[in-house]
């Protein structure tokens, strides 16, 4: 069993090494086969583990070898698979595999195709390390590793300076988060003398609720989550990260890596439950992020940017769930979001592919008849993310809303409003892309085509999952009627405690359901009227006015960061260098020989060579000595 578990991450690593070393010496077909089979094998093993959990297995752990032993620190390169990990494994290897398949079609003609596939494999390896580690440091290794892959893949087309800047920004902003993660780990080690999950969580049980140390730990860890999962104030890298090839956006910047922060909080739920204050912070940050990103999403005209802000917003939803204590709900939304957001990105990739690289939805329209499969699957994704009843997003989002209602009605109102905004920007995107008249160039129109089946097949699988994926977590009224359980909660119950108070009265559930249907119907009607019947097309950037301009410019957050952090840092550094280092510190050092020289030159004046002066000095000296002696 130990070997089998270790194979899950090691197979994609082997794929990376093999493709990375042989690179262009491998035929393209082999590159696709190697990269895909390694991930597929990991998926099969994960599925096998998953089945064993259903049969009642407890958890597996294994140590590859001792890694860092120093002082009281004993860290093994060790893995642990429990129910929570099993869920993440299925998402990472399952969705990961579909995106690998898609990439064969999407990236085959790129001159650096092998490099791309090897990076994808490397990413999967690090992501698996992240969720499989049995201590915080192994998680951190995966955590920084996925950050590296993100950097490498955002800047994959490294001839383009903007892309390189985007990759670098992603890495540095993630590092700011990692800084908090590191301090959190140090405090954990100082407090519990260990960084192993088992030992830490066991010892934490002796701490009272509201313990300040635990609060500090959880807040520091959350700084890491904020960076990785693109929450306020560290979210601005994610929209820029869309510079990467679209499969990357789907895999890393939607389905898996960005949910690492959510995973980390869920993994540490024992600690977070001890700190109500941290919970409030998590929920608040999540709420503000969800709302703000959704408003920005309303005014974006780049198909991938809309989806990127949507991802930021949906991650906010997840953190709201975690913050109010609904950990299983947060994880549930991770899973459904992985399905529909990966789907939406891959569809966007298919659209961009057909449009010859065009990403501006103002130049699209009417693509429905040219890209039938992409259109239908994209629509499934839109329905799922908007929370149309019975589609997957409905179930998980409904649970989040219910949980916020229990926690704070005000928060519920904000989140419900944000859900509505989600539907608005998604339908806007949908209508503008697939309906109305084609607004691109004649040349583009001639080349419109549906993507090859290697790309559409993953779309179909993901579309099916987006439609039915929610049924593993049915609300109480539904499961009661059907006589089945909330299978998702039941599966993760051994590792994550899900409080009963989030199950609300059926009256509430029904009113929420009806409210949702009415609101979504209104959204459907009005957006359709606006973008299809009235054929409204978003104005060109130069014509945008007032608050809309603020939204289109993302609240000028990048500009603010530039003015408040980057420029002052550069200025301080310049000052350190030019004034302090060169003039003051080195000035003093160089001053010492100068003083020595000056003293020497002054002293030289005394040696004039005139005997008279020497005699006078000598006499004065003798008198002085006598006087000295007499006085004593």
């Amino acid at each position, binding site marked *: 069993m130990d070997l089998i578990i270790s194979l899950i991450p090691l197979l994609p690593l082997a794929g990376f090494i093999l493709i990375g070393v042989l690179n262009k010496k491998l035929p393209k077909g082999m590159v696709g086969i190697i990269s895909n089979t390694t991930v597929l094998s990991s998926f099969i093993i994960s599925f096998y583990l998953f089945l064993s959990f259903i049969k009642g297995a407890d958890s597996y752990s294994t140590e590859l070898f001792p890694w*860092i032993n*120093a*002082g009281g620190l004993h860290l093994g390169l060790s893995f642990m698979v429990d129910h929570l990990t099993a869920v993440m494994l299925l998402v990472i290897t399952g969705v990961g595999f579909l995106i690998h398949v898609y990439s064969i079609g999407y990236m085959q003609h790129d001159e650096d195709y092998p490099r791309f596939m090897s990076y994808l494999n490397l990413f999967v390896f690090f992501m698996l390390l992240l969720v499989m580690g049995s201590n915080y440091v192994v998680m951190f290794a995966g955590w920084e590793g996925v950050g590296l892959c993100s950097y490498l893949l955002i800047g994959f087309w*490294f001839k383009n300076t903007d892309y390189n800047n985007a990759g670098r920004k992603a890495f540095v902003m993630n590092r700011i988060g990692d800084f908090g993660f590191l301090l959190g780990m140090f405090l954990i080690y100082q407090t519990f003398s260990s960084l192993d999950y088992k030992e830490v969580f066991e010892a934490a049980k002796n701490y009272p609720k509201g313990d300040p140390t635990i609060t500090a730990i959880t807040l520091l860890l959350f700084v890491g989550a904020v960076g990785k999962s693109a929450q306020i104030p560290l979210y601005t890298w994610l929209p820029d990260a869309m510079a990467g090839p679209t499969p990357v956006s789907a895999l890393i910047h939607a389905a898996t890596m960005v949910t690492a922060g959510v995973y980390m909080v869920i993994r540490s739920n024992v600690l977070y439950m001890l700190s109500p204050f941290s919970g409030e912070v998590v929920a608040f940050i999540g709420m503000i992020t969800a709302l703000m990103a959704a408003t920005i999403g309303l005014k974006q005209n780049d198909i991938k940017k809309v989806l990127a802000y949507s991802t930021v917003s949906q991650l906010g939803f997840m953190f709201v769930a975690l913050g109010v204590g609904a950990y299983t709900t947060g994880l549930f939304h991770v899973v459904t979001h992985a399905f529909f957001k990966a789907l939406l990105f891959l569809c966007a990739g298919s659209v961009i592919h057909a449009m010859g690289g065009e990403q501006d939805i103002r130049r699209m329209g009417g693509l429905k008849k040219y890209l039938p499969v992409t259109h239908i699957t994209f629509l499934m994704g839109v329905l799922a993310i908007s929370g149309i009843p019975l589609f997957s997003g409905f179930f998980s989002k409904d649970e989040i809303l219910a949980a916020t209602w229990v926690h704070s009605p005000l928060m519920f109102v904000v989140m419900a409003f944000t859900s509505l905004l989600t539907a608005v920007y998604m339908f806007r995107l949908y209508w503008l892309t697939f309906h109305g008249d084609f607004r691109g160039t004649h040349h583009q129109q001639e080349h419109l085509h549906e993507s090859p089946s290697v790309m559409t097949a993953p779309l179909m699988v993901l579309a099916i999952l987006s439609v039915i994926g929610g049924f593993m977590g049915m609300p109480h009224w539904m499961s009661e009627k059907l006589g089945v359980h909330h299978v998702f909660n039941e599966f993760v119950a051994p590792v994550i405690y899900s409080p009963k108070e989030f199950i609300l009265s059926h009256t509430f559930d029904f009113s929420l359901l009806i409210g949702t249907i009415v609101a979504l119907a209104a959204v459907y009607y009005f957006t359709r009227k606006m973008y299809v019947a009235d054929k409204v097309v978003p104005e060109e950037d130069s014509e945008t006015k007032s608050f809309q301009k603020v939204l289109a410019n993302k609240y000028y957050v990048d500009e603010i960061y530039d003015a408040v952090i980057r420029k002052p840092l550069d200025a301080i*550094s310049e000052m350190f260098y030019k004034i302090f280092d060169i003039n003051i510190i080195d000035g003093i050092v160089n001053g010492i020989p100068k003083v020595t020289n000056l003293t020497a030159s002054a002293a030289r004046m005394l040696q004039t060579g005139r005997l008279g002066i020497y005699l006078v000095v000598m006499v004065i000296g003798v008198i002085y000595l006598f006087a000295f002696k007499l006085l004593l």
Partner: protein
Amino acid sequence: MNNTLLIVLLWPLVSMVLSLLPAKEAAGKTAFALSLAGLLLSVYLFMGFVPANGMQQVMSYAWIPSLGISFKIGMDGISLLLIMLTNVLTPLIILSSFGRRIENPKAFYTLILLMQFALLGVFVALDGFLFYIFWELALIPIYFICLLWGGKDRVRITLKFFIYTLTGSLLMLVSLIYLYLQTPDTHTFDIDAFYQLKLSGSQQAFVLWTMFFAFAVKIPIFPLHSWQPDTYVDAPTPGTMLLSGIMLKMGIYGLLRWLLPTVPAAVNEYGFMIMAFCVAGVVYASCIAIVQKDFKRLIAYASIAHVGLISAGVFTLNSEATEGAVFQMLSHGVNAVGLFFIADILMTRLKTRNLSELGGIANNQKFFAVSFMIILLGTVALPLTNGFVGEFLLLTGIYMYHKWMAFFAALSVILGAVYMFRSYQAIMLGSRHLSDSDFSPLTISEKTVLVSVAALVVLMGIFPSVLLDTASPSVKALLSLINAQ
């Protein structure tokens, strides 16, 4: 009696003589072959080492008995690792000079080997006077290497470097003699006698500051660093590698071996203050590295930041940070050699290291791009590279000592990523295309150096326990020696 240590120590001297024999053209190859043999000898030494046995292969011969001076050498885990560092890096440094135009190669390689001898001596000396001799001996070859093969401004810069470090060394001599005079009647320079001294608070403070000055200049610790950037930039690349890769570790080793156990009370009293300077230097030098335009000067400042962190860890007196410091000395040595070699490759091919004049090299130089990336990852301490192990242990230990100290020290995690990725982008990425005639493909020897460094970065990051376990008992012994007093 086992003489392996003595043979390892003396091998560079033998090599010096042997490398003078062949013709001028073969001087480099001979020196390389001989230093490789030295490496093999030290691997043999490593295999025979038993971590749990403490100070090993100790041998002591009376040298100047009337003054209590003896030729006493020995090694524990810390010494051994630094011996390994020296003997791994020396062949790489020699190899890195292949294909470069070097006037008077025989003298050049002889001086490198002499340097190796002096460095090894510093790491094994157990007699204060012997330590001082090796310490000063190390200055001579590097002085000539910088002076004779350095850049434009070498005379002024080398003189400054020489006087600065010599001032430090003299203070150290004063403090060694002072300690010597405190030893009982038939005075001795033996390190064990120093350890057993019962010095008063003010005596300890005197020894601490005089000796610390010498080590701090060598390392260098902020604000005694201003000789370093100029010297690193102006020295020929092998010289810079010797200085940053190995020589500065003399200072950190000196702190561990000679300073801390001798004056523990003073270290307890002033340790916090010294650490504050070290940590200030970490942030300060990292910031300065961000605005550097010359890649070599950028690495020089980055190096100040990295060694500042190591020095801060040394003063925590806990085993996490101390083991981290020992490990990071090795990582830093390997990575610094790699980075300075990259700067050298740029300089020999494109005649510039100015970041704004570079770019696009990755388009045609995949091998170079990958090796540079791996070495960069080690430098920014990505987990599973060598940089992470040391940095993580250091920061953990510093955090246990004082949390705000760790807060500021850990800023280097962010700042390091800023300057390293910025320079990688400026040098390697972008649309500019350089053909093989603009940037000739790497030679075999260049590739060998890069592969070796990159392999060490990864292997040390994945299997650090081989090295940590070697150092661990010695670190424990050292710390218990300090805390016992």
